[in-house]
């Protein structure tokens, strides 16, 4: 990559150029950093401070310092730990399915024909439907008594499945609704990425006589790795925060079977008004998320370098 100045000399004009160069590099990061610091700095500090204190609900400000009490409470809270487990199970199934389905669908949607733009635009719709409405519609469709899905599978003789009342089926339900909502996201990004792929590489592969599978594994996937990694990380962070779908469909039930961690924190904060405890839990979730994100990023960096 071209460098505009050498960094070993202290010649005044070179130093000035160096400063200008540094400025020009950082200017790319400035708008984002400024906005994020302005908006996030106080809230994050506040969250951390009240996670170590008692919160007075009369003024919403921290009163006495309680140290790690809230954290210990959180980490010994059976319900909180259960919600982390539930979230883990949900992510384990939802993320791979969404990535595979998304990239596969993107491939199908990229086929060149007149209706391609329309299909792509329509495919967006599941993402746009408000989560409350989406959860509600799916709840209707899956209801054992009047749901279209059970009526449909009943035509083939299958018994009425209790989609929302059976713990395993309820987990499948939220994975299903989440996949329905977010596969278009993955597909959209993947489609754009596939369109950006340089066509000469594929020409070269074709001339070399590569077949469909070889092209896929030796050319397409390596080229797409940065996008796959970026999409995965972005989707992973979004999925960790998911709770509106669960709230609208299963409400965390049956029992605690689908009580994902963000729903649990939301209810602690807004129903129980336990803001300080909820902050401690949020910090715990944040730490876990950051650790896992770092792991994913390192893995994706290695993959990028390999390809």
């Amino acid at each position, binding site marked *: *990559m*071209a460098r505009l100045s050498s960094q070993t000399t202290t010649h005044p004009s070179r130093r000035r150029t160096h400063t200008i160069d540094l400025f020009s590099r950082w200017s*790319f*990061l400035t*708008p*984002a950093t400024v*906005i*994020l610091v302005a*908006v*996030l700095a*106080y*809230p*994050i500090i506040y*969250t951390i401070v009240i996670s170590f204190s008692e919160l007075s609900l009369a003024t919403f400000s921290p009163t006495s310092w309680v140290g790690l009490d809230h954290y210990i409470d959180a980490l010994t809270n059976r319900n909180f730990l259960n919600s982390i487990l539930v979230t883990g199970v949900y992510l384990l199934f939802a993320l791979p399915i969404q990535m595979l389905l998304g990239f596969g669908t993107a491939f*199908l*949607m990229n*086929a060149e*024909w007149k209706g391609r*733009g*329309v*299909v*792509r*635009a*329509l*495919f*967006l719709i599941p*993402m746009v*439907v*408000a*989560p409350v*409405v*989406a959860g*509600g*519609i799916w709840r*209707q*469709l899956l209801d054992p008594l*009047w749901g279209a899905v059970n*009526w449909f599978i009943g035509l083939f003789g299958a018994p009425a499945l209790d989609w929302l009342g059976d713990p395993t089926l309820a987990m499948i339900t939220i994975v299903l609704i989440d996949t329905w909502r977010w596969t278009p996201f993955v597909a*959209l*990004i993947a489609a*754009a*990425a596939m369109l*950006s792929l*340089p*066509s000469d590489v594929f020409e070269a592969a074709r001339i070399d006589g590569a077949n469909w599978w070889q092209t896929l594994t030796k050319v397409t996937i390596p080229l797409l790795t*940065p*996008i796959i*990694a*970026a999409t995965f*990380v972005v989707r992973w962070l979004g999925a960790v*925060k998911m709770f509106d779908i669960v709230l609208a469909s299963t409400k965390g039930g049956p029992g605690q079977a689908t009580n994902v961690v963000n729903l649990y*924190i*939301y209810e602690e*904060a*807004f129903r129980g008004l336990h*803001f300080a405890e909820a902050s401690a839990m949020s910090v715990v*979730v*944040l730490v876990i998320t950051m650790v896992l*994100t*770092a792991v994913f990023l390192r893995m994706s960096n290695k993959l990028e370098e390999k390809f």
Partner: protein
Amino acid sequence: MSIAVRSHRTQKRTAHLVRIWAGVIVCLLFLFPVLWMVMTSFKLPKDIFTVPPTIFFTPTIETYTSYLQYADVPQRMLNTVIVAFGASIVSIVAGAMAGYALARIRIRGAATLGVLILASRGVPPIALAVPMFLVARNLGLADTHIVLILAYCSFLIPYVMWLLRGFFVALPKELEEAAQLDGCSRMGAFFRIIVPISLPGIVSALIFSVILAWEELLFALVLTNNFATTIPVAVAGIAGDTVNGANWGALAAVGTLTVIPVVIFALLVQKWLIRGMAEGATKG
């Protein structure tokens, strides 16, 4: 020999047709619940929960006309448009620049900064909403468009930044080198060369930014009261109606209405996207 060529071409055409039709079928499958929602929006409340589900019914537009005026939907739609597009445009500009910096420019500490920014996405929004409200109230900004736009930027910028970083990393390195040999500054090279080439990625990021901001509920609930409330808040209110029971017809109607502007936007932008691609292709 010509027979072999012809059958190979037919094979390719069949494969192509299968690909197209598979895509259409998948799209239709995904749209089935949406179709159900649109149907529901035209049903009378008592036709919605019947056993078995009614497919033929007398349609009514009463839900659209009566309830929607009642619930101040037009005003809220306008607010949602302002906030979603405002936040998205700011985020695209800031995020694209930041993503480019992370992908292509060597800056000490940039990678750490980038990871920190990304990690901020991991904070449960519930934790952030209350302090944001307290700050906004102290600054007198509660219940304004600007406070929502800023709040939305807080989660859109990291997204855009990391997504576009992935796009930029995949670009050939020769592009900037050529531009800089021609005497372009970094910023100039970015805006004149990189951005046009990355339009598919940037437009995709814009579309999904609009969508994410469009449907955001928690910040809108906490930070606004009346003046700047958005459609998702209205939807939550209808769904959580603990007095009369959730009016599913109204929910479906609002759901249908909120889908339309974004789809139109996506359709318009799609055409532009394809045109951009065509130009990019001819340039090679």
